[in-house]
């Protein structure tokens, strides 16, 4: 039994201590490390206006302030929010965002012409906003014809976690967390996307909850 446990812990160490800085979804997989496609986090919550839902998709995490001014969205990377409202974990609606070099253009919420890994831009642009520059006094925001409010640009990474201590625990060099802990994401930025949508555009979910996930996709 003891031997089995040691083996199990060893497996965990090998699996988790990959030698890279990760957390939440930051740099979670080999193919997205250092890429514009790397998603750090997805958030979904009720807006300040109770009839709206807010979706936040953050990418390109762990940006030091000195690196944030040069960080850019990628015109070849589609950011897509998928919404299942029938309970089968297949997207019934998508909200898409693509950068054109100046503006972030948004499509949807709209039923996609096909589901799954491969996508194309669906329908017409429903909102667009100039990407807020690093150092801007205030964020640039815009509202689309369907009432959708949008933002794109650098923001403080809202994620917080004592990642370094977790690494030590997994590596076997510490037995637990410290109190207080130390936020490994303090002082770092992300390239963020915020979309606030009237709930009325998303339908009524079967079972009382939407199932939501975000994807980044590269132009092929």
């Amino acid at each position, binding site marked *: 039994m003891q031997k089995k446990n040691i083996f199990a812990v060893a497996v965990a160490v090998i699996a988790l201590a990959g030698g890279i800085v990760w957390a*939440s979804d930051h740099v979670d997989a080999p193919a997205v490390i250092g890429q514009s496609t790397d*998603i750090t986090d*997805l958030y979904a919550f009720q807006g300040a206006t109770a009839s709206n839902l807010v979706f*936040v998709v953050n990418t390109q995490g762990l940006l030091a302030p000195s690196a944030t001014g040069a960080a850019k969205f990628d015109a070849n990377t589609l950011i897509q929010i998928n919404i299942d409202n029938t309970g089968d974990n297949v997207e019934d609606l998508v909200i898409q965002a693509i950068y054109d070099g100046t503006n972030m253009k948004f499509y949807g919420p709209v039923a996609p012409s096909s589901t799954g890994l491969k996508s194309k831009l669906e329908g017409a642009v429903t909102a667009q906003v100039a990407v807020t520059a690093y150092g801007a006094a205030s964020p640039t925001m815009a509202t689309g014809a369907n009432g959708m409010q949008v933002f794109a640009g650098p923001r403080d990474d809202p994620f917080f976690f004592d990642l370094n201590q977790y690494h030590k625990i997994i590596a076997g060099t510490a037995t637990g967390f410290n109190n207080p802990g130390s936020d490994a994401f303090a002082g770092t930025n992300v390239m963020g996307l915020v979309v606030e949508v009237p709930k009325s555009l998303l339908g009524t979910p079967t079972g009382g909850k939407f199932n*939501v996930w975000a994807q980044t996709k590269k132009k092929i």
Partner: protein
Amino acid sequence: MKKIFKNLYLVAAVLVVAGASCKKDSTTTPPVVTYYMGGDAIGRPAINTVFVTTADKDNFNGTIPSVMGAAFQTKFKTQLLALNPGYTTNALTLTADQFTGLLSTDVLNVSPTAKTTFFDGTNVLTGRALADDVIHTELLLVFGGPAGTSNPTLTDDHVPANDKAFLTSFPYMASPW
């Protein structure tokens, strides 16, 4: 096979000629549809990083949610029991099979009516707000046992909040450092 291609080429050539002859003066090109695929995916926080082995991480990002459970539940269970060999149930009274069954379909559940939060003591998986201490919640569910009191040094990283205050209105996230 080669012949088929050759024939297809001829047909295509004929079509091009036919098209040109009836739309001689048109300079319109057919619309080119751009497709996008691959990349990253996320539902709940930290799932790929915690429950997916290194060899499977890209594969997990490339798996659509509707087939994730069948592909990954058993692997997630192995990983859960590697992290916490003493796992019985957790504060949500989920067995290892039930807990990994829930997590392996990596989507964020969002209520349009209830308070939207990952977990606030009352509401469970009704969304994810910026201020939610999702890591504490996940550590509790992985290490805390049925009462949330097991492995007390592993159930809280003691970083309960962000380093900058969030905004109460759009765009909600704080300005960059």
